[in-house]
């Protein structure tokens, strides 16, 4: 006998992500989910971001890794609330991990929540965390064909940060081709070029955050 189910496999995660979305909306928290390969510079970007923000900024970071508290220690130096999520082997963050990590944080005290996903271009794409925007990082020490090889994340991300651009003179990375590849997969995607060692592109990145935060809060308030 055939029994119809017709449900998304990750419907439980989607349900929890929806709860998070509603909480973020109610508390006016703007949440971004940073995704990239290991070593593309998610933590470095967040370090420079936190350092650039005024001490009074109401921001917080959840950072995911399979093991170690290293990233949380690095990020905590800036003085903002940081919590490490160690997944113990799981290659992505899911909505239940975010809910658990936020349990003892006062969301009314947070304007921007940065979620640094586990370094992986594949699996984190499938798990909705209730975030407003996914951001993908692509460093110039990788191949410019990454958007074509991993189209799911580039199709889902609103912004692509091309990181480590100070290394461009030393690596065979074809920047215009990388941008063309990213736009091929996702025509409307924003692109920002950064260097965390030479402090390039950070103003543009911070401006994107501020602009996107303002319209996200408005959009969501209208939806609910």
């Amino acid at each position, binding site marked *: 006998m*055939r*029994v119809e*189910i017709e449900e998304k*496999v990750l419907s439980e995660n989607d349900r929890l992500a929806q709860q998070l979305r509603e909480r973020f909306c109610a508390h006016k928290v703007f949440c971004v989910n940073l995704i990239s390969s290991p070593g593309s510079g998610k933590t470095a970007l967040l370090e420079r971001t936190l350092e650039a923000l005024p001490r009074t900024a109401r921001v917080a970071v959840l950072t995911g890794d399979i093991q170690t508290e290293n990233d949380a220690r690095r990020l905590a130096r800036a003085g903002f609330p940081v919590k490490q999520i160690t997944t113990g082997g799981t*290659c992505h963050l899911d909505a239940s991990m975010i809910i658990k990590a936020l349990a003892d944080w006062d969301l009314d005290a947070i304007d921007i929540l940065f979620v640094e996903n586990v370094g992986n271009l594949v699996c984190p794409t499938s798990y909705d965390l209730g975030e407003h925007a996914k951001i993908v990082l692509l460093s110039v020490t990788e191949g410019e064909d990454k958007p074509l090889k991993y*189209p*799911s994340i580039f199709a889902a991300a609103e912004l692509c940060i091309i990181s480590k651009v100070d290394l461009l003179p030393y690596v065979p990375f074809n920047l215009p081709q990388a941008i063309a590849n990213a736009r091929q997969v996702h025509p409307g995607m924003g692109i920002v070029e950064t260097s965390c060692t030479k402090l390039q592109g950070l103003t543009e990145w911070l401006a994107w955050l501020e602009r996107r935060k303002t319209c996200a809060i408005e959009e969501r308030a209208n939806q609910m």
Partner: protein
Amino acid sequence: MHELSIASAILDRVTAAAEQNAGARVTKVGLRVGELASVDPDALAFGFEALAKGTALADAVLEIEYRKRKQRCTACNLEFEPGEISSNCPACNHADTVCIAGKELDISFIEVEGPPCA
């Protein structure tokens, strides 16, 4: 690499569905997996088999319907399967196209044998 977590979510959902048909044995689980779902069907079947061992779903086989990615052109409304390099519309070369299929990761049905539900 996350096929095991996906398999575990499928197992939970199907176990719950089977419990509603008490005494029935699940023989097949029908899934729909899109090209953009980032799930390898073989790894998923392997994970499912490993997790199902020793449970009520030990004999269930996975039937996976693989869906190709499809885009729709926002200019001329053509629906097409994009090539590897370009997702531009093959008819009018418009670059703004939206994904309408290929992201699926669904449980579509189960097949059960045994005591019919009363």
